């Protein structure tokens, strides 16, 4: 009976999360189509090709007469229009693309900017491009976030017994200040200081690609090369995000610490560590796990702006390149992947809630 109930709840959640996934991809397609963005992009591609074709024809040795030339150019234009599907309304082009994306048939990218971020050949498979860029984001942003979480999980419980002490106040003040500064701006300052003033960090971060590729193919010695590039971005993220993270872990713990059963445990004179383990961690676990999991899942999409500041060729830069070059296929694919990761994380959480919180099972 209970198992069945839990299964129904989970199935319902799964259905809604899947709906969210569909809506995210459809919404993206709608924005691309309804604003006329993809049409603008495709039209400029067609115009460019037609212009090049006319140029080629009129500079060739067997230059056709003007009427014939115009006819050939017009014919080429019509071919291109048919090829790109511009003779159909945008809905007719976008909807198949969306459906293909949803069945993970991501296709190839026509955009050189996008393949350039990954460092692959033009017209590569979008799945290959994502597979190339994802490790770079993991090496920088996910790693940094993991460090931040570790710090928060150590420092949070430490200060929760010392609420109001000097160290606690300092941490709250630090969290407030760091909450106010956007990461990308601190990143700019870090670049200014470490790369340009002191010259101890690299100015260009793209070359990290070589080392990451080597590392992925099993060459452990490339690790120092990766570290050489990655330390500044990681420190930046850790410096900025630690404050808010410690603060939120602290806040989640405080809610539990103020509960009567903790006070009772303290009154019985139990040691701090034991109270923490037995009475605090368990009730505070589910919001903390939520934050950790969603935080880590969120990093896989890359921090678009921060990656752009460091010119770090990860998922964020990839998405931005897809958006600026108007590559609908890649934009849809990435939106799908970003949302999918998030939705999966949410679903894992739903399952974990059942495991962690016996009340849900009742």
């Amino acid at each position, binding site marked *: 009976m209970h198992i069945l109930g839990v299964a129904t709840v989970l199935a319902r959640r799964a259905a*809604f*999360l899947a*709906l*969210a*996934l569909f*809506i*995210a991809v459809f*919404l*993206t397609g709608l*924005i*691309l189509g309804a*604003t*006329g*963005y993809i049409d*603008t*992009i495709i039209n400029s591609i067609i115009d460019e090709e037609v212009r090049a074709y006319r140029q080629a024809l009129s500079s060739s040795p067997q230059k056709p007469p003007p009427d014939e030339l115009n006819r050939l150019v017009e014919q080429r234009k019509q071919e291109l229009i048919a090829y790109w599907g511009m003779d159909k309304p945008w809905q007719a082009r976008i909807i198949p693309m969306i459906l293909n994306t949803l069945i993970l048939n991501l296709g190839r990218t026509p955009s050189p900017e996008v393949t350039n971020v990954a460092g692959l050949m033009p017209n590569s498979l979008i799945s290959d491009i994502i597979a190339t860029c994802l490790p770079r984001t993991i090496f920088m942003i996910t790693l940094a976030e993991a460090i931040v979480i570790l710090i928060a999980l150590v420092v949070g419980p430490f200060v929760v017994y010392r*609420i*109001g002490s000097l160290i606690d106040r300092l941490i*709250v*003040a630090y969290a*407030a*200040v760091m*909450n*106010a*500064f*956007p990461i*990308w*701006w601190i990143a*700019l*300052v870090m*670049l*200014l200081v470490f*790369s*340009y003033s002191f010259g101890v960090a690299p100015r260009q971060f793209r070359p990290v690609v070589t080392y990451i590729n080597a590392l992925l193919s099993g060459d452990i010695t490339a690790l120092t090369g990766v570290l050489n590039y990655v330390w500044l971005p990681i420190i930046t993220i850790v410096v900025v995000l630690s404050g808010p993270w410690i603060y939120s872990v602290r*806040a989640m713990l*405080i*809610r539990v610490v*103020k509960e009567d059963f903790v006070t009772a445990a303290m009154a019985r004179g139990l040691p701090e560590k034991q109270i923490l383990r037995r009475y605090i961690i368990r009730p505070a676990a589910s919001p903390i796990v939520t934050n950790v999991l969603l935080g880590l899942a969120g990093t896989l*999409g890359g921090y*678009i*702006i921060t990656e*752009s*500041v460091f010119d770090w060729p990860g998922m964020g830069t990839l*998405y*931005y390149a897809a*958006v*600026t070059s*108007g590559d609908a296929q890649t*934009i849809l694919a*990435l*939106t799908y992947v*970003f*949302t999918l990761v*998030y*939705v999966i994380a*949410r679903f894992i959480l739903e399952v974990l809630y059942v495991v962690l919180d016996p009340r849900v099972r009742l």
Partner: protein
Amino acid sequence: MSVLSKIYESWSWIRKEILSQVSGKVAFVLLIFLVVISVYAAFLMPPDYTKYWDVGSKWVDNPQNAPPEWASYLGYTCIPQTYYDLRSLKPAVSEASARIVFTYNITYTLEARDFPQGMRLKVYTTVPQGVRNARIRVDVIKPDGTRLPAIIDISIDLTNTSTISLTIDKLEGIVTAVMSAYRDLISVLRVEDISIFPMKYIFGNLSYSETLKKVETTPLPGRYVFVIDVSFRVFNVQPQEILRSVEKSKEFSLLIKGTCYGLMGTDYKGRDLAEGLFYGFPIALAIGLLVALASTAIGVVAGLVSGYYGGFIDESIQRTVDVMGSIPLLPILILVAQSIAKTYAGEDKPIIMLSAIFAVLIVFSWGGLAIIIRSMTLSIKSELYVEAAKAVGASNLRIISKHILPQLVPYIAASLVYSTPNAILTEAGLSVLGIKHGFPTWGNILADARQYGTISQWWWILPPGFLIALVSLTFVLLGLALEKVVEPRLRR
């Protein structure tokens, strides 16, 4: 009335609570500072500020990419902007062959070992009837005694008009002047170098470098004299008359552009960053509050409706929040902004782009508050006094506004405060990314710095970020103080 007074009561309680905390006090001081500056800037803001900032005619006089004047303490060689108002100076008057000549001797002292960025002579005046022709000629005498003759020599025909309107920043005569002053170097001087960098040849020491096989210029500090001859060919006009009209002219000035400027320096167009940052205050606060108010209002209404009425409405609002919470906001924002940037070409593009960005932000950011409001409404709704009110026949509207809403005020205030920096940060983030809307916000200044500047131009990059952070710090601190009001357990 009683609802308002209840809300007011609630507000004064909140205020007392906030001011009893350190973070609250700091936030309050910062907030007052922001509001005062914003109101002041909003009053002074030129009409059509977007255009003023973008194509303002006054920027051409400023040095470009110039650090602030106080940068000299940081080791920058700073040449200040030097402006001479020639109207107030008494010229030497002489007459020769039907011409009246006014001679101004202007001394300029170059102290730093650097070249000024440029010079500009501006004349806007009306001369008396009978002046047929005017001629302006400028010579420079260098500290070493070298005289560059006629770096400016311009003649204005005044037979049909009596107005002179001139801005000279290109020194047409510089090549000939340098060639004639340095006859010994004439075979190695390069015309292009002189016309591209005239300042190096006016304010520099010239020497031929055997190794580089070209003329080298090094800054030559010292006393320079600019001899400005203004001569008029006249018919029946007294010198005094012309002098009076010159003194009354709208503009008659010589400007030696510096390499440092003002309090905050300039950007690549020579725009005064102090001005841009100053007028950015009201813009930042306005967009922050606007978006926060809108999303908070939607969140409150949705939460109240959801919690109070329940049933199908509740379910659909909850699921909508759920679905929207799973959609990645920043990618959607970037996509919307970029799509509009590429497809819309109207005059009002900055406003349209900003509105679209904010619309997306509002649509995606009311969910969190709606859920809190819903759960609070649910618990208040089941209180006995609400049931009593219902039993007496109070309408839903009355119950919501009299019993429920006043209790939610602290939460609403906290949400409002926390979400205010959102729009400012998002707008700035998108600008930094390179999606430019063109509206002169702090983010826009940062975007220009990223696009047209180098990262070492700290006076261009750091201040806008600091101000953005200052505004958000104000609201974060205020939020921290409010948080203790709404969550008493956080108190010691």
